[in-house]
């Protein structure tokens, strides 16, 4: 299940990145070479960046790669670190549910009827990115919690072996 979600997200974000490079080059080409500037590329690029960031941020959260200050937490005893993992995950879930899911839905609803100025695209499509990211985030949050539970089980079962691997 995780693999499928990972794959789809990776595919979407990478395609978006490639498309953005091509569209930006196309923008230069239409203006400098064709002397007839494209009027929709700029808006497309701005909104593509929003989608790329939202989906990519969820994916990166799945990999636990967002920058954090860990030098305090790393000094704590292993057991406390595991408890801290839960606390951090719980705090992030509060962020996901309140801002991304609840706030995102509100923003999505309030954009009804508004259209983008160049593409004429419903602005709801832009804010949809927050809600979609919220769903992805919550998916990864649950995976993280299961992983932490597994880790705790392992530490409890073989505390010695673990210390050897990770002094």
């Amino acid at each position: 299940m995780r693999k499928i979600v990972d794959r789809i997200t990776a595919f979407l974000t990478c395609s978006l990145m490639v498309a953005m490079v091509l569209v930006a080059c196309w923008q230069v080409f239409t203006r400098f070479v064709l002397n007839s500037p494209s009027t929709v590329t700029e808006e497309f690029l701005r909104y593509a960046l929003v989608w790329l960031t939202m989906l990519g941020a969820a994916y990166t959260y799945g990999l636990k790669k967002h920058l954090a200050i860990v030098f305090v937490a790393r000094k704590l005893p292993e057991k406390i670190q595991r408890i801290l993992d839960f606390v951090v995950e719980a705090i992030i879930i509060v962020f996901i549910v309140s801002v991304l899911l609840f706030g995102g839905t509100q923003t999505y609803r309030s954009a009804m009827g508004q259209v983008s100025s160049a593409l004429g695209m419903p602005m709801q499509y832009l804010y949809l990115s927050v809600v979609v990211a919220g769903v992805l985030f919550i998916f990864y949050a649950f995976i993280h919690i299961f992983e932490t539970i597994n880790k705790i089980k392992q530490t409890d079962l073989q505390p010695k072996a673990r210390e050897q691997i990770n002094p």
Partner: protein
Amino acid sequence: MALQAGLILAVVFTLLLILSVPISFSIVIASLVTALFILPPDLAVFMASQTLVTGLDSFTLLAVPFFILAGVLMNNGGIAERLVNFAKVLVGRAPGALAHTNVLGNTLFGSLSGSAVAAAAAVGGVLGPLQKKDGYDPRYSAAVNIASAPIGLIVPPSGTLIIYSLVSGGTSVAALFVAGYLPGLLWAIACMVVAYTIAKRRNYPVTERVSLKVAFKTFIETIPSLMLIVIVIGGILAGIFTATEAAAVAVAYTFLLTLAYRTVKIKEFPKVLMEAVELTSIVMMLVAASAVMSWVMAFTGIPGAISGFILGISDNPIVLLLLLNVFLLLIGTFMDITPAVLIFTPIFLPIVTGFGMDPVHFGIMLVMNLSIGTITPPVGNALFVGSSVARLNMEEVTKPLLPFYAVIILVLMLVTYIPAISLMLPNLLLE
């Protein structure tokens, strides 16, 4: 109200950071908690989610993912080695030749890849073993590598300067780019002077004299990589594209270059792309989160309260700039560049423009301060990577780094108090 709000924001934010909650989420949650003291919950979360999106809705910001992608392509593209060979030809006859090659290599490669970490790893990784073979003390070579790794953060193109342009309310990216050259050059020269002095005392060898033919061949091999600078900066100055578009052109060019060098297989491109997507999302999520924090700060009047406090200490520009430098160096010591630029620009810029400082000049000073932070303990990415490619502990390289810190701070003072170092080139070239 501003003081209470500022206190809540700072305390919650610090607490979350210590708990090791990722910085971007910490920013949003701390802002949300602060907002809840004034706004009803439904409006507070609406504000947060809406501002996450509008904070990203900027054409200028697009340059960041593009330069990140170009940088990642370059790290995988064998470009570092070619630049090192080129640098060796240029500075090979000076005592401690390989150390100077390292400084120059970091400047060139860092300028192109825009990453202090990538420079420390790629250039230091190539040169470290060679220096050891020539009898250099590994602690010395690691210190040289680390001290010069962040130069590319202010030498254009620079993603950090683009983010500064955005939060400073649209300072010209072209001007910032051109302004970064001299300070970056001074930083490189300062490192080379220290490296030279130590190398001379320890009798570190020069590299073998290369024949003119080999020198020429090395140069020819490097031209395609160096062309990237010509294309990006030249294209902007010639009015072919804007700074943002230049970033996309840089990607296209680097892509062709890696194809030509055959260093990245087509099969590996998804991996390279994914690396760029991850880096982009991390940085952009920070940008989005900071927009939420800026909103809450503006809404509660925090920036005004802070600048009132600072101006209460002194209204002498010389003293204020010194205070700002000390503060920013401290911030840079344990905070990453991007969030620091995003959080502190809106607070400090009004103060310095208040006494007539040019936003371009302040941008260079700010980014230089924070770049130094990447090589200072206790937390510094370039410091970590630079020591680990040299197989050393952070503590082992800190002492040999001291003379380098001293000269870099000296350059920082020059950049701070002599506006011309930053502003001369933009005034000259952007006419």
